[in-house]
């Protein structure tokens, strides 16, 4: 299982960090947010990086999960666990119903449709005030508890969310290296060619769209319990863009790249606190410059640089060939 080698490294790093730096703000507070973003980025990367289907509305599904959990636990007194499940079911139904018409679209049209979907979900969250609390948000969400073990400290949340992240990463890596993963990459290259090879492209695309939405919904539920407060701002169009940026920054079609992008973009604002007013500008500049000069992303960029130095050969990796680095390493 050599394609999981990176995964073991990631697991070791994620679990060692709180042991080495317990009660460190950057580990147990910012780190939790980074892990949550990593879950979202990895799921979006399945859709964008591997299947080649851009989504500018991923925050919408994140929001549905968060609000389903928030509303069911605070307004109807549900236990948090079935509320997560209910959120997943709701997201699944919505994603499945929309997948077919949305994924028939390509390029700009797909971008616009997913963007519209994300904005519509956000507007509904703002407008249905009696349920969602409107623009002011909804507070007093109970926390999770696992057989009497209350998840009520930063460190415990770190453990829970990092474990879910590792699970999602493991799932993503396995999917990518399975038959369906190869089908995804095939339809990224050319849908017609993929169909000629006997791949049911509609079913494959629907599947990955629903899966990405479900993971986002799960992340949303965790987010709601962790913050104990949700407001529509957290699920806006801008957050969708931020997620796309994470995927792009790390490198599309690379799970570790998505994690790297999520970690960098979560820590960057913390480190740029001194330049607070420049934050938006720097964010935009990163997005633009990355796409112009390093469209394959940091992770793949650094890797091919290392490989080049290692082999001592001047061989340039083509930009975004759609070849995933995980399987590349697995084959080596």
């Amino acid at each position, binding site marked *: 299982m050599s394609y999981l080698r990176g995964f073991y490294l990631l697991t070791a790093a994620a679990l060692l960090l709180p042991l080495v730096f317990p009660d460190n703000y950057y580990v147990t507070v910012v780190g939790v947010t980074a892990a949550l973003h990593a879950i979202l980025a990895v799921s979006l990367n399945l859709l964008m990086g591997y299947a080649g289907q851009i989504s500018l509305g991923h925050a919408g599904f994140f929001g549905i999960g968060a609000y389903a959990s928030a509303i069911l636990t605070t307004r109807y007194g549900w236990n948090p666990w079935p509320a997560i499940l209910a959120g997943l079911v709701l997201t699944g139904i919505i994603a499945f119903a929309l997948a077919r018409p949305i994924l*028939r679209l390509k*390029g700009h049209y797909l971008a*616009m*449709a997913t963007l*519209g979907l994300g904005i519509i979900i956000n507007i509904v969250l703002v407008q249905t005030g009696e349920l969602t609390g409107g623009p002011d948000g909804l507070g007093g969400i109970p926390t999770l508890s696992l057989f009497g073990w209350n998840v009520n400290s930063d460190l415990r949340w770190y453990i829970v969310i990092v474990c879910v992240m590792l699970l999602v990463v493991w799932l993503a890596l396995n999917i990518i290296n399975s038959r369906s993963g190869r089908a995804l990459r095939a339809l990224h290259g050319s849908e017609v060619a993929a169909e000629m090879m006997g791949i049911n492209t509609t079913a494959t695309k629907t599947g990955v769209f629903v899966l990405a939405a479900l993971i986002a919904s799960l992340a949303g539920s965790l987010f709601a319990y962790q913050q104990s407060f949700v407001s529509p701002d957290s699920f806006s169009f801008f957050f969708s863009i931020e997620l796309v940026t994470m995927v792009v920054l790390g490198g599309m079609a690379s799970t570790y790249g998505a994690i790297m992008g999520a970690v960098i973009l979560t820590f960057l604002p913390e480190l740029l606190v001194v330049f607070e007013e420049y934050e938006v500008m720097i964010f*935009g*500049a990163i997005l*633009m410059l990355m796409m*112009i000069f390093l469209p394959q992303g940091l992770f793949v960029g650094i890797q091919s640089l290392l490989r080049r130095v290692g082999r001592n050969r001047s061989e340039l990796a083509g930009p975004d060939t759609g070849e995933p680095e995980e399987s590349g390493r697995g084959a080596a």
Partner: protein
Amino acid sequence: MFDQILQFVLTGITVGATYALVALGFAIIFNASDVVNFSQGEFVMIGAMSTIAFSAGEGLPLWLAAVGAVLLAICVGMMLQRFAIAPARGASVVTTIIITIGASIFLRGVALLLWGKDIFGMPHFSGEQPIQIGEATLLPQNLWVMGGAAVLVLGVHYFFNYTTNGKAILACSCNRTAAHLVGINVSMMMLIAYGLSALLGSLAGILVAPITFTSYDAGVMLGLKGFSAAILGGMGNPMGAVAGGLLLGLIESLAAGLISSGYKDAIGFIILLLVLFLRPSGIFGKASTERV
């Protein structure tokens, strides 16, 4: 009831005229370079915000400030083409979309740095005495918006059909290589297309700012609405984009008045989704087939 509807229609046409100008800018850039420019809304913001900055801040007369703002927007548009779009030629659709989204965030960041988060107003061009039409009222500024948009749309129509440069841009959009071979300066034409698009966006922003006010992030929604309008009209069809803009403005205004103002934006996007699902080439567009 009828008077109310008349009022909604008048408001709708005013808003729609703004959407139409933004959509026209989208269509021009899409035609010329196959790029969907997500920073189109920022031209609108730059137009309005820098007019206010030049007139209120520097004490220039409003018309001179507006000229300065439009020139600034044109420069930004050309720089966008030269430094962000041109270097990434041949990149995938996703890549160019993300580049222009990055550009829009960057421009918004600069505006935030220069002018802060405040909301600014602009004086009306010719008084605020409402004009009565039946029971409905209209501000002189509404007439400015409608008239200005009409003049600009006709101007663009003339430019593309009767001038050498306009026809040369159309030639580039048909076949870049062929255009180059017949001696058209393709990169110059791209600059003109982006400049023209920025001019339309910034003028839309200046015309509508006295009614709607403006802020550093005023361009976001306008840009998205303009894109919706361009898709409604059939991407790459300039006059379709104008019609799509007017239609979207009308529908939104009627929906806000008769159904719910809170869902105004949602209704616009729901219509967009329906059009995409049922007729992806737009209401006025021709169906196209993908070449393999």
